[in-house]
């Protein structure tokens, strides 16, 4: 007969150490967590969960999840080695997520964003109807609220278990981007390891700015497919972030420790276009440095010297970086005029 131990046993020490797949060194798991899941020896970026991403990128307590209740059906009654609903359930048990993507609104260093995040552990981060819907709603909210959109992609591509319905998510997630182009709302795409297939062949490649984490696998077809089809030797560093940077498909490769600051720096200069621009009237919203300064001067009155500095604080002076259209500035100017 088994004797039950009265105290709860500590977790097995098996997960106390993590092996780095890049340099084979053993890392104490707690240390890995503290180091933002980056190998302290070689700088290998481990994959992150959605929760860790939110904590990494967004201001504490600012994230509000939207459409948390969306779940997938089984439109094709798809069976491979096991039924699709079973796979969904297993993924939910493993990750605590209802789907491979989560979206919501939050702030990065004070700048509001509509943010969508992928978790590769949920069926390879694959995009089915629900993931596509969440991405589309993220863009649509960015559009109506006129805040920048940010998607943190990590996906194997379209979800085979939903057949062409998944394929059409490429178009569903891309269509709002055409509207955002017209409306002047920016979209930043952050590519993490791995971003491939249908997700890369749709919105992820269409960021106004595309940022990638170092040495992430980013490509259209799997490297195995690419070499198998052609029987060619693959070039050095094929389908990595650095490869894409070299070939002109990525703007920035940013280490995880700098990611938040870099995104904030981008958001500071990439704000939605003001809706009431009158290009004909140079003095309304000037073009070029002098025009901008004098435009501000008119609107802000006495507040000029404080506002037009290099280190403008986003929360205090939302107007000065174009955040929240001109109206904000006028309000401020009026309220500051006693």
């Amino acid at each position, binding site marked *: 007969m088994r004797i039950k131990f009265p105290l709860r046993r500590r977790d097995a020490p098996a997960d106390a150490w993590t092996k780095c797949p890049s340099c084979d060194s053993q890392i104490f798991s707690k240390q890995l967590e503290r180091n933002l899941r980056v190998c302290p020896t070689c700088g290998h970026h481990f994959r992150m969960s959605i*929760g860790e991403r939110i904590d990494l990128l967004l201001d504490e307590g600012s994230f509000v999840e939207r459409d948390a209740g969306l779940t997938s059906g089984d439109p094709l009654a798809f069976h491979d080695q096991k039924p699709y609903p079973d796979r969904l359930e297993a993924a939910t048990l493993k990750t605590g997520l209802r789907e491979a993507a989560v979206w919501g609104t939050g702030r990065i260093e004070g700048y509001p964003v509509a943010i969508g995040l992928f978790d590769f552990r949920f069926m390879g981060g694959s995009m089915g109807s629900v993931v596509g819907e969440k991405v589309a709603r993220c863009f649509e909210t960015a559009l109506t609220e006129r805040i920048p959109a940010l998607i943190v992609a990590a996906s194997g591509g379209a979800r085979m278990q939903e057949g062409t319905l998944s394929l059409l998510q*490429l178009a569903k997630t891309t269509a709002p981007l055409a509207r955002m182009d017209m409306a002047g709302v920016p979209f930043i795409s952050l590519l993490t390891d791995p971003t491939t297939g249908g997700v890369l062949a749709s919105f992820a490649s269409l960021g106004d700015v595309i940022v990638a984490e170092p040495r992430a696998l980013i490509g259209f077809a799997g490297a195995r497919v690419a070499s198998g089809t052609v029987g060619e030797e693959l070039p050095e560093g094929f389908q990595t972030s650095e490869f894409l940077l070299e070939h002109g498909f990525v703007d920035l490769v940013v280490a995880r420790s700098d990611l938040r600051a870099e995104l904030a720096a981008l958001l500071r200069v990439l704000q939605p276009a003001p809706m009431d621009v009158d290009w004909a009237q140079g003095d309304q919203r000037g073009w070029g440095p002098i025009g901008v300064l004098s435009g501000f001067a008119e609107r802000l009155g006495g507040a000029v010297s404080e506002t037009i500095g290099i280190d403008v604080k986003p929360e205090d002076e939302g107007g000065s970086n174009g955040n929240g259209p001109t109206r904000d500035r006028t309000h401020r100017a009026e309220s500051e005029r006693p």
Partner: protein
Amino acid sequence: MSDLLPADLEAIRNAEPGQEAIDAAWHRVQLARHPQRPRTLDLAARMFEGFVELHGDRSFREDPAIVGGPALLDGRPVMVIGHQKGIDTESNIFRNFGSPHPEGFRKAQRLMRLAEKLAMPVITFLDTAGAFPGPAAEERGQAEAIATSIKLMTGLQVPIVVVIVGEGGSGGALAIGVGDVVLALENAVYSVISPEGCASILWRDPEKAPIAAAAMRMTAADQLALGVIDGIIEEPSDGAQADPAAAARAIKSAVLEALSGIGQVTPEALLTSRYARLRSIGLVIEAPGEQAPPLQPVTLRRRIGRVLRLPGVPRPPRWSEIWPSTDDEANEGDE
């Protein structure tokens, strides 16, 4: 995830589509890939007058896997764009078996912008196993080319009619396959990944392609039921390859009908309905639910207490505690 495999594998096998359905689906795949099936250039000659093929993407090179140019459809100027497979080994090598490189999609984009400029409807013919996955294609941005093509089509201010003629293979097909009306020939197929690719990933055996074909519901009839396409064009009884002229006539009348169905609309109305069509595709089960971090008012005592880690001042839970990461390989390699 093998720990979650049901014990009774036999039951799962029985739940797979029946042999009859598998054979039927595979037969359609074979027909869709038939070497004698009418191709875009063939259809361009039979359906239109005055077709002039235009070449080159104005950036890198000409890609013969996608062809296109302006033509007259019953006297009305239209832009014809389509994949082009070869008919024998030599022409297939020239056409890269109908699998475009990024240049092909960029040529298509160029032609679509020209169509928009001159207010010509766009008619596209889909017939590809997929976009070419080679290293050169990756270097020149295959994913970006497809994505840009799709985005261009979602916002193109002229009517777009898409006809799936043979294989509608994944992103390479969708890149010229976003439209106001999407039609398919009776024996055409449309899929997110080739049945061979799906079988080798999910069954770990490419020989299971017929089962994958049935499971993915690639046939035109299934696609109609799923709402991915809007109509089916009947083929001659032995298939389009037996009588290409009759097939071309059937496609022509279906395209004319689709264009007259779109009728006189403003570009805004056209784009609104195209957007609504795309937004409605897919199955989404909506339950109420919103998740916000549990917030506590931040008082001075709390703030100091949190820094000094005083007892009775709990830190609010962080998102990484709600959704932590687990370190195990979860490779669900999808398309």
